[in-house]
């Protein structure tokens, strides 16, 4: 059943890689394991000492180890192979699942494995005593599995399956506290927004599959890179449609609205799914199909670029006005995803994935840090925090590292990845977009500094006495802080570009510009923007005022209101899309059904019964039946007379009988 797929794609792939040997061949284990673990947790979890968390942790730990091994293999030798399992054929189509083990997917395995492991450890403590603890871990494990299904997909179909499965897990986890209607609504919003985007993805996949005659990604890419006519004709539309799918999952404007609402879920969920892994699926998809986009669908890539830039800027602006700490981070995530998409759009494959890589660590760190704070103060609102740096030193320190990394100051991770994106924009000559991206960097630095100041500086404005979280929670923070600090050092132009090699080790070659050294113009602009953002925020919230009322200084009403209302996008969706469908259309269809169609049918019944009444009254009752009844009454009358001869006396009967015999006999005799 397992087929190592080895057609002649080797020629154009990167110079040196291996098929990964036995570890690649058995990589399916890490995909299947979480599902088994989820089953085990469901059935046995409640009776275990940690209520199932140990199974989840064990499986994730295994994934982590396995991905480390694969990661090591990839660093040292370079791995690129894919495996297929046939699960049925339909028409001439082979439906296949399988797994890809190459640089791109291994990078994702590693991110998923590492962040999952840390988040799981963190969650054991964070979720302690919470409702549906076991189910939480079931879903989380399921999510890890689904994410691995997604990133290991060698066929578009499996990709779609993983794509939707992570969506469901996201639904389950966002709606974890479903007693509150708000939370279940947020979960629904996330699912349906994604589903809308999935329609694009689905149609895109259908178009690609039917034009190329295969669902295998590598084959589609082969055709794309060899300028097959068929795929060329649909490249633009398919590229756009698939990007719509990516827009949903990776929260690109205008489909980003679900991500901030998704913060209704528990914080570890936000850290794992809505920062590090799931939301990067769109970027991953663009990366996976990059040869396609880069070659024949480059027009679609321009659209990608535009939406990425819009997202990175618009979402960053909203982050400034948020009071909810998690929402600041959520909008920040949207904005950073915008950066990644921008990178992809500008043709910088490595830069986009590099930002994905660094962002996964520092954003997970920030979310977990925020979770630690929220755990301590029991509120999400920054207006009820403040001054926490003394009470929560470790959280504070790690949070600062994350913030600095996000703001893009050297030598932390964000600096390198953001710089590459800016450099790529500069190199490609997208000057306007370059300026916006730099402005975005400024905004990023500004809102993060604002968030830090509001949370950790000034006076404590909340209730109770917050204290530092347990070491179970702070240890992952520190590990992530370490990664946030060093993750960027794996791709320093001119010094060490290992990451480029890692993610370009794949069967379908990537052609892109790899800078020999830093683009000093881009570097300085980015650095300056970051420093300016931090400085301005410090000036506003610390120097000319204090964290409590710093917002007042920059409340430029019209803009502020638009931002607070998220550009009225939600209102627009509800007023012009959701409500009309849910209320107007649905109600009118239902009315049409019951009032018109049914009435039509029922009137048939009425007509039939009216005709029936006429036939019955006039023809049947008045005619035939009357005649019949006359017969019957006549018979009755006659009978009542004739019955008198029925005396019941046997002898009389015999007499009648014999008289008859005689009469008949006489008649017979006379006639004969």
């Amino acid at each position: 059943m397992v087929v190592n797929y080895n057609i002649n794609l080797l020629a154009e792939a990167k110079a040196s890689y291996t098929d990964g040997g036995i570890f690649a061949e058995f990589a399916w284990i890490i995909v299947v394991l979480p599902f088994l673990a989820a089953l085990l947790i469901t059935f046995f979890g409640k009776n275990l000492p940690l209520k199932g968390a140990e199974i989840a942790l064990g499986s994730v730990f295994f994934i982590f180890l396995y991905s480390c091994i694969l990661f090591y293999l990839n660093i040292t030798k370079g791995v690129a192979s894919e495996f297929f399992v046939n699960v049925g054929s339909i028409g001439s189509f082979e439906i296949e699942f399988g797994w890809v083990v190459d640089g791109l997917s291994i990078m994702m395995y590693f991110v998923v494995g590492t962040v999952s492991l840390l988040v799981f450890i963190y969650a054991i403590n964070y979720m302690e005593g919470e409702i549906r603890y076991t189910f939480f871990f079931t879903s989380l494990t399921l999510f890890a599995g689904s994410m691995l299904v997604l990133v290991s997909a060698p066929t578009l179909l499996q990709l779609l399956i993983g794509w939707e499965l992570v969506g469901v897990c996201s639904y389950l986890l966002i709606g974890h506290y479903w007693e509150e209607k708000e939370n279940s609504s947020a979960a629904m919003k996330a699912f349906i927004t994604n589903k809308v985007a999935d329609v694009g993805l689905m149609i895109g996949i259908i178009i690609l599959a039917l034009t190329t005659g295969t669902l295998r990604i590598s084959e589609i890419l082969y055709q794309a890179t060899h300028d097959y006519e068929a795929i060329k004709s649909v490249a633009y539309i398919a590229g756009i449609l698939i990007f719509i799918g990516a827009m949903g999952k990776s929260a690109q404007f205008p489909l980003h609205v679900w991500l901030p609402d998704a913060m209704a879920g528990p914080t570890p969920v936000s850290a794992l799914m809505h920062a590090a892994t799931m939301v990067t699926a769109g970027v991953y998809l663009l990366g996976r199909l990059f040869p396609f986009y880069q070659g024949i669908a480059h027009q679609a890539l321009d659209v990608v670029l535009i939406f990425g830039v819009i997202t990175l800027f618009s979402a960053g602006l909203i982050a400034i006005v948020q009071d909810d700490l998690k929402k600041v981070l959520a909008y920040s995530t949207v904005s950073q995803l915008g950066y990644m998409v921008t990178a992809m759009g500008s043709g910088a494959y490595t830069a986009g994935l590099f930002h994905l890589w660094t962002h996964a660590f520092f954003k997970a760190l920030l979310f977990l840090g925020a979770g630690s704070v929220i755990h301590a103060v029991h509120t999400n609102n920054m207006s009820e925090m403040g001054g926490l740096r003394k009470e929560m030193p470790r959280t504070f320190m790690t949070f600062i590292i994350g913030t600095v990394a996000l703001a893009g100051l050297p030598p932390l991770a964000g600096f390198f990845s953001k710089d590459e994106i800016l450099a790529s924009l500069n190199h490609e000559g997208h000057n306007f977009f370059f300026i916006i991206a730099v402005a975005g960097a400024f905004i990023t630095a500004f809102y993060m500094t604002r968030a830090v100041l509001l949370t950790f500086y000034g006076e404590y404005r909340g209730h109770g006495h917050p204290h530092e979280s347990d070491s179970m929670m702070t240890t992952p923070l520190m590990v992530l802080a370490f990664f946030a600090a060093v993750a960027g050092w794996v791709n320093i132009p001119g010094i060490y570009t290992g990451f480029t090699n890692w993610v370009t080790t794949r069967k379908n070659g990537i052609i892109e510009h790899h800078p020999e050294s830093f683009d000093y113009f881009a570097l300085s602009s980015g650095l300056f923007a970051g420093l300016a953002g931090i400085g301005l925020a410090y000036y506003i919230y610390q120097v000319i005022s204090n964290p409590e009322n710093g917002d007042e200084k920059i409340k430029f009403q019209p803009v502020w209101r638009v931002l607070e209302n998220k550009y009225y996008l939600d209102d627009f969706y509800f007023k012009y899309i959701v409500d009309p469908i849910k209320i107007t259309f649905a109600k009118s269809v239902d009315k049409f059904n019951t009032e018109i169609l049914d009435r039509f049918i029922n009137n048939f019944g009425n007509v039939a019964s009216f005709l029936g009444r006429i036939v019955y009254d006039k023809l049947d009752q008045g005619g035939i039946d009357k005649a019949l009844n006359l017969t019957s009454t006549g018979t009755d009358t006659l009978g009542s007379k004739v019955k008198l001869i029925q005396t019941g006396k046997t002898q009389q009967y015999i007499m009648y009988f014999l008289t008859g015999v005689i009469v008949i006999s006489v008649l017979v005799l006379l006639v004969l």
Partner: protein
Amino acid sequence: MEAIDIFSYFLLLGLLLAGARVVTTSNVIHAAVALVFTLTITAVIFLLLAAEFVGLVIVMVYIGAVIVLFLFGIMITRAPLGENAELDNDKNKTIALLISFSIFGIFSYILLNTFDRQINITEGTSTEILGQILLSRFVYPFEIVSFVLLAALIGGITIARKDNALVDEDQV
């Protein structure tokens, strides 16, 4: 006219007289006895006609068994013994006479017009051949009729049995 003819006319006369007695007497026992006479004469006629086995059957079955049954029936139903003016339904008498005479007339008319052949009285006994035919050609009817008889006997017993569910003790 031979002697046997004259003898047979006497027999027939006796038969008719006895038969008439059966239906006219107002004494139930007399009626039964008259029936015995009728049957006896019938048996003799059968002997005369060389149907000796049927004659013997008449004697044994009818006179021996059926009549006894009738006598039991008469006694069990507490029919008044001796003269009983109530025995006949006088209202019916005229019409009954009319009917029976009409039937007799019709029958006679047909018989006289149709059958004017001679009776050939065969020599010797017919019992043996009768038995053979009965058990070869008529074996199935024979078996069936025996089954019918058995069924009738069982049925008679079932009906006549004293059934507590239907009848009170003191009424019998």
